[in-house]
């Protein structure tokens, strides 16, 4: 069965179900199973079917703004470090030592505990050739896994979905937040974005007229889920032509219609799960804390999601970095620690891998405003019951002659980390997703 046939069938099936009289417009969970049955052809693929209760889950955690890797995973015994950062550098007696030369920022107590428990891996010196120092461009490069000089419209997770889950529920990818990250962009849009489950539904009808809800909802569905071959109904030459053009694949109207359909399908499922399951750990009252708390509830409830996406912003520390960076890292470590505790008590700890990334690290030398400017290589964290623990990769040299325009040279291409995550964790060939062969870094 070709991809397009599968997708067309799925959409028609959803429309019919949603418009059918017998069912309410919410979609029961059996739908996911029905799809697996409908598209048994997909099971023939070499890769495993993506949905399934016990399948591994990836949580991508973006540290937006360019996290200062040097003050996160700190080479405290290195003279070059202290010379370049006379006031921002952290001395050996303050860091949480991992060995004789490397230590974690003192705010990362939660990460140290996970490290000691063998559940946290630190990939040192991660970057890519010809690093770009623009937030946006570099973020795009990480999101699309492209070379620095190539522009891609599709994200690496979107390509993973394209290759592995035709006919999946839209909830195969969940981005916590109001915007869909570029990483999720695929040939066929998949995944949902939400920031609060309680509001994640259509509340029809006039206020205080509950009796009239039904006709409003019925009409709402008919107005939103228009059958595809309906374009001909438009009368008048120019309008018809416009409508025809808008109905082309990828056109805005069709995109919004598809989004409306996905919203409908995922809404009931997500709300039910989020309210059924409770968090058992104490999360910081931050945006990241509540994002990860929601992810834990959705995992606990058994949502068939393979990739969750959460982010924490504020790392663009050009001025007065000290206090800001400390607050951010504390929030990060405390939130992730609570998340792993929560998953442990659910018994899902070994199914989940958290991977952090940031668009770049920061310049080795501090600037004149008690801050740091955009740099290059930085560190990634891998966290989970099965994550490969310890210091991975190699710390780049800080010696002035080894720097490139004042920045660290990378030792590990981030796409080898992605390759490891794809092959060893999500169990799918990485080459179709990343566009070429990268030797996977061992992540589990």
């Amino acid at each position: 069965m070709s991809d397009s046939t599968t997708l067309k069938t799925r959409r028609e099936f959803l429309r019919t179900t949603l418009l059918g009289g017998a069912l309410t417009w919410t979609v029961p969970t059996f739908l996911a199973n029905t799809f697996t049955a409908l598209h048994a052809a997909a099971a023939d693929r070499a890769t495993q079917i993506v949905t399934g209760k016990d399948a591994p889950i990836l949580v991508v955690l973006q540290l937006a703004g360019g996290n200062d890797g040097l003050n996160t995973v700190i080479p405290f015994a290195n003279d070059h470090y202290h010379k370049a950062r006379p006031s921002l550098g952290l001395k050996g007696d303050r860091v949480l030592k991992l060995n004789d030369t490397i230590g974690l920022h003192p705010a990362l107590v939660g990460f140290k505990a996970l490290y000691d428990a063998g559940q946290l891996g630190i990939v040192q010196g991660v970057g890519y050739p010809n690093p770009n120092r623009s937030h946006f461009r570099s973020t795009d490069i990480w999101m699309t896994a492209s070379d620095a000089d190539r522009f891609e419209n599709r994200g690496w997770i979107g390509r993973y979905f394209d290759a592995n889950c035709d006919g999946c529920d839209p909830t195969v990818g969940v981005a916590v937040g109001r915007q869909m990250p570029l990483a999720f962009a695929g040939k066929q849009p998949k995944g949902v974005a939400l920031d609060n489950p309680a509001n994640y539904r259509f509340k029809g009808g006039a206020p205080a007229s509950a009796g009239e809800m039904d006709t409003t909802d019925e009409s709402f569905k008919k107005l939103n889920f228009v059958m595809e071959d309906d374009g001909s109904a438009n009368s008048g030459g120019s309008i018809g032509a416009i409508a025809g053009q808008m109905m082309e694949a990828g056109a805005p109207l069709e995109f919004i219609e598809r989004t409306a359909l996905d919203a409908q399908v995922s809404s009931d499922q997500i709300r039910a799960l989020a309210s059924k399951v409770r968090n058992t750990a104490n999360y910081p009252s931050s945006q990241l804390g509540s994002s990860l708390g929601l992810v834990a509830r959705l995992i606990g409830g058994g949502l068939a999601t393979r990739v969750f996406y959460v982010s924490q912003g504020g790392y663009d520390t050009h001025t007065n970095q000290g206090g800001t960076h400390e607050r951010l890292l504390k929030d990060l470590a405390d939130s992730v620690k609570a998340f792993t505790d929560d998953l442990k008590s659910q018994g899902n700890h070994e199914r989940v891998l958290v991977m952090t990334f940031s668009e770049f690290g920061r310049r080795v030398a501090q600037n004149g405003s008690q801050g740091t400017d955009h740099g290059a290589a930085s560190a990634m964290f891998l966290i989970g019951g099965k994550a490969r623990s310890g210091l991975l990769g190699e710390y780049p040299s800080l010696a002035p002659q080894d720097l490139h325009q004042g920045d660290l040279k990378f030792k590990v291409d981030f796409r080898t980390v992605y390759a490891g995550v794809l092959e060893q964790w999500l169990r799918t060939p990485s080459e179709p997703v990343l566009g070429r062969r990268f030797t996977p870094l061992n992540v589990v």
Partner: protein
Amino acid sequence: MLMPLSAARWNDQTAAHLLNRAGFGGPPAEIEQLVALGPEGAVNRLVDYEQIPDATKDPEWARPDPERLQRLAALRQKSEEERRLALREEQQLQRQRIMELRGWWLRRMVSGPRPLQEKLTLFWHGHFATSVEKVRDAYYMWRQNELFRRLASGSWPQLLAEVGKDPAMLIWLDQAQSRREKPNENFARELMELFALGEGHYTEKDVTEAARALTGWTLDRATQKFVERDRAHDPGSKTILGRTGNFTGDDVIEIVVAQPQAARFITGKLWHYFAGVRPDAALNDALAAELRAAGMNFKPLLRKLFLSEEFYAPNVIRTQVKSPVQWLVMAIRQLERPLPPPQVCHTLTRSLGQELFQPPNVKGWDGGLTWITTNNLLTRYNEAATLVYGDLGPVRDAMRANPNRAAAQEPRLQRRMEERLDRLRLAGVDPEKLFTVDERFKKEELIAALERRFLQAPLRETQRQALRQFLDARGATDNDDILGAIRLILCTPDYQLT
């Protein structure tokens, strides 16, 4: 390239398209006026906006406050407790003012006499995206907004130079802190990458050299004005974009804007903003040539743009996703309803992903299809009830779902905001103001009037039938049924486009 629009194509739909894109749309009566003016008359009316008097008053706090610095300095003598209290008051004052400023600007968009000027001001705000989050001063944000308005269709080199010296920008991209010993590259980089040239049209070396030349441009916090400090300036020789000399900040702007790419870059972005699609290479070249021919002034280019066949192409009309601000302002105008208070408007657009004076980063809002996610679409649908019925439930939901940073830190603030909301009463739409008697009582006429007012295009047949069934199920149509039908139209994929 840039074929003039043939007069035969001027009709309800093309006139509506002009008003939708060059402004924020409007009720059928306004569209009819533009139809009557003919294409050139209509475009001139929008473009030559200086000829229309604008009596809008500035916010009463929108003037320099030379004592502010002294007040803040005097705090150093005070106890820590007093300092904390004073700082909190200051923050609260700034928060109130920025909210007032949002309302002030939205009102200009909704009912100001110069829609294109406001549409352009919104473009420049997204282009030179500066956030109050870092600037922390409503007065500076207002000044920047006024700068965008004053030079909205003016000269590109002048606008770039004035933006470089604008207090909010000096703070936002750290130029105020850049000194010869340690040049800060932030403004120099974004000037080339995001403001004037685009990626791939400069080197890293150009950025560091331009940053050196820009040292000395800073903000005098006492006078609240731009100042060029010789002591902080690096007077040495620099090489920028192939030219070498002892350049200053003004030279940087001149060198950058003289690049052939400068005209291409900004006209490409303007076309995208107004047409909703990216221009192909030939069209972009034609637009850039128009800008250069006009001595880098935008007004003649805009006139040609709005009178071009390309701007009215089928893939342009009704294919642009409304930004949350467009969605709000256009709906208010089409519904002919009063503008809700600033806090309500802000909560609505914020929950849809757009906060005026607070773009997510210096790149501005990504826009286009990225406005539409499953979450944002459901939120748009739900918030339509606020605009149609005056129902504040969705506003309350949004406020609780995304408490702003200040409210998250201060639960008292959140409670106060909710209490204010509890006391608020918002009017609903008055159908009798929107529709004639015939339209209100004859279902087919009502449907046609709804299409004309809200979509400026016919519904598809199944949608039309659904709407008809909705009205039929309720017997004789009353005002509540009309509101229900409006609500339904606002909750369609079609309505999210303009």
